[in-house]
């Protein structure tokens, strides 16, 4: 990233020893600018400009879904052991860049304590889910004793391409709570980042890019929910939509209605904590959130059960 061209508007945050970053989308393992050429300004709580972030369009959604579709089989066909290792590797890289994320969170208005606790929780959650890759079928798969001369078993398989609508906060933990079960499931995804607090998610793309995650497995786009949820929920090649229960009813209903076009699976679970809550009681809110997110049933939501029969004979 360091030798990248910087033709964004000069940020006021520029100092001699810190060059501000241009935040871009992450599609197919690359960092393209939004196809639309538009941006919006991310500001600190006091109104100070922090960064310009892409206002992605439906064409970015299209490109991201295309990349996700292409990558899905590659990700799913890796052995469970391998997927677990790659996910663990994400935690290692994230851990090494811990300070960078804490700084970004503080820029966005986090207290030092909340930022530290959240990044710790993120690392913990990634390690937790990394361990599920080779256990989910052992716990939830089954051999079914059918009343005929057949061997019959059910195992869990990925659904395919997932649209993930991140909650606004917690800025990284909220997104990971939705992403990680999908990675365990073997899905590939397009993440719509938090509008107000997109920086940790954007920076997380750099972690992914350096963690052996195959290109296209996770794609991240920034922008307005009102512009991105319609195209992703209408997209005929998206198989699942997941989001957080704090999402505006209007968008949630839109997801449910549009899911009928190709019978998308739609799931919402709780990963939201408001910034106020994060700052006022970080310990309690984050540990509650992590407890709720550490739920293997979220993985089952975004998988299909496949049942195979075969005769038993000489």
């Amino acid at each position, binding site marked *: 990233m360091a030798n990248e061209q910087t033709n964004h508007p000069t940020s006021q945050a520029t100092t001699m020893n810190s060059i501000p970053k241009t935040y871009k989308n992450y599609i197919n393992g690359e960092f393209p600018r939004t196809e639309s050429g538009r941006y919006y300004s991310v500001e600190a709580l006091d109104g100070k400009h922090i960064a310009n972030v892409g206002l992605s369009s439906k064409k970015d959604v299209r490109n991201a879904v295309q990349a996700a579709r292409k990558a899905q089989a590659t990700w799913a066909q890796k052995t469970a052991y391998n997927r677990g290792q790659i996910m663990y590797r994400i935690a290692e890289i994230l851990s090494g860049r811990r300070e960078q994320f804490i700084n970004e969170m503080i820029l966005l208005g986090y207290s030092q304590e909340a930022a530290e606790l959240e990044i710790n929780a993120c690392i913990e959650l990634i390690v937790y889910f990394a361990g599920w890759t080779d256990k989910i079928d052992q*716990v939830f798969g*089954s051999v*079914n*004793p*059918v*009343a*005929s001369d*057949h061997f*019959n078993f*059910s195992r869990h*398989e990925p*659904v395919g391409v997932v649209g993930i609508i991140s909650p606004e906060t917690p800025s990284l933990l909220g997104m990971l709570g939705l992403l990680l079960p999908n990675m365990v499931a073997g899905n590939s995804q397009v993440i719509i980042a938090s509008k107000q607090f997109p920086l940790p998610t954007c920076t997380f793309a750099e972690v992914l890019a350096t963690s052996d995650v195959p290109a296209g497995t996770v794609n991240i786009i920034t922008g307005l929910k009102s512009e991105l949820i319609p195209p992703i929920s209408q997209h005929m090649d998206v*198989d699942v939509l997941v989001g957080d*229960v704090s999402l505006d009813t209007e968008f*949630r*209903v839109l997801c*449910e*209605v549009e*899911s*009928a*076009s*190709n*019978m998308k*699976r739609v*799931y*919402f*679970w*709780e990963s939201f904590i408001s910034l106020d809550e994060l700052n006022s009681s970080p310990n309690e809110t984050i540990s509650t959130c992590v*407890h*709720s997110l550490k*739920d*293997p*049933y*979220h993985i*089952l*939501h975004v998988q*299909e*059960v*496949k*049942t*195979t*029969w*075969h*005769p038993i004979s000489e």
Partner: protein
Amino acid sequence: MSEKNSSVLPTQSKQTTVPIDWSYAEAPESISHVTFNKSYGLFINGSFTEYNENQSFESTNPANGECLYRCTEASESDVDAAVKAARTAFEGVWGNYSGTQRSHYLYRIARLLQERAREFAVLESMDGGKPIRESRDIDIPLAAAYFFYYAGWADKLSYAFPGKTPKPLGVCAQIIPWNFPLLMLAWKIAPALACGNTVVLKPAETTSLTALKFCELLQDVGLPDGVVNIVTGAAKTGEYLVQHPDIDKIAFTGSTEVGKVIQRSIAERQLPSTFELGGKGAFILFDDAALNEAVEGIVNAIFFNQGHVCCAGSRLLVQEGVAEKVIDLLKKRMQHLIVGDPLDKNTDIGAINSKEQLETIQRYVKTGIQEGATCFECSSSLPTSGYYFPPTILTGVSQSSSVVQEEIFGPVLTIQTFRTTDEAIEKANNTPYGLANGIWTDKGSKIFYVGSKLKSGVVWSNTYNKFDPTSPFGGYKESGKGREGGLSGLHAYVKLDNNGGVY
């Protein structure tokens, strides 16, 4: 004696033999022990409402097109009464019962179904047109088996959900199709009740009879009032049920088209829902397969229940090297299929469920031929009254043909060839549906390779159209959401603590 017959034994010359044209005489199943009413009310809160002539519709016997009985079409207020009864039963009785108590009722239902199996089989065949061989050997015994299986889960639910405390959802609205009336009822009611829910179920308007007879059985069991309510009617009744504000769950089995309508209509309420929708299953036949068994598999895949099967193997994909041989064997086999009276024990293919469905099938085959397909039909004679369609295969079709793309829901098989394994997988998956597929090969590793790549909830390898209460069933993609049967089937009827997620 011809030259070809030179190997025949000397008896030919010693004993005069008359060439025999042996065919099977009629073997009708007795209907003398079966009774049903000429008209039915609705089953609400443990008893039948008065039949309402002004608000009624007829159900015909598709074997002769004549009216078999009349049903009351449930109005909005009828549906409301049914939901209220279910709510009251849930809150007052059933929801408070222990798993052990619930299991006792479910076991009794299973037993009574077994005791009255033949009666239900005959009624199912009269009402829906399916051959008695199938209703007797498959539909009814399986329905009983589903109740027996889920009865055993009622008091063991905590073991089904490690780390969770499953709770019932409440009142479940269930809508079932006409192809397996009692079996679909069992798939819906058994797990719902086992998990502690109460039910309002709407059977399909052409096949209400076994659901209504089932209510008699519930009365004999002494199931508490309101735990199961049956409202008969067509689309309008279904809409009232789906739109009812006090239901907690929708379970629908039927066409993808209607499934989408329901999904849209419940969007604002974010109701837990499961859908079993259409399909266009591929039957992939490799050149190293056991061909004789595969041909029998094809017969089961597409001609079972007149092809009115959402998971039917309606697209045969056969490897080029054996295509000719397979088609020849299949044609020979088809000559021994008997189309006829559903109540004759020798009937293989019964009546098409309704006039509308018959016309749909006829239209598809006509289109297929117009699009260039070659049509072959089994030679069995068809009864002169009622709705019948002969088992049919269409060759010379392509992936873009409408008969290959769309669900026909009749005894019509399309045949395409392929060269390589990956080509077969690609063709099989090239559809919006994903309910079931079949793989036929003698090579074990190929089964797992192909099976893992097929996008469908069920993979039948070296077999087809097998069902079992322990075995999850349900679709990928536009074939549905969620699973019925087995452990997965329980997920559809519980809520689990702490996460608000419901599956």
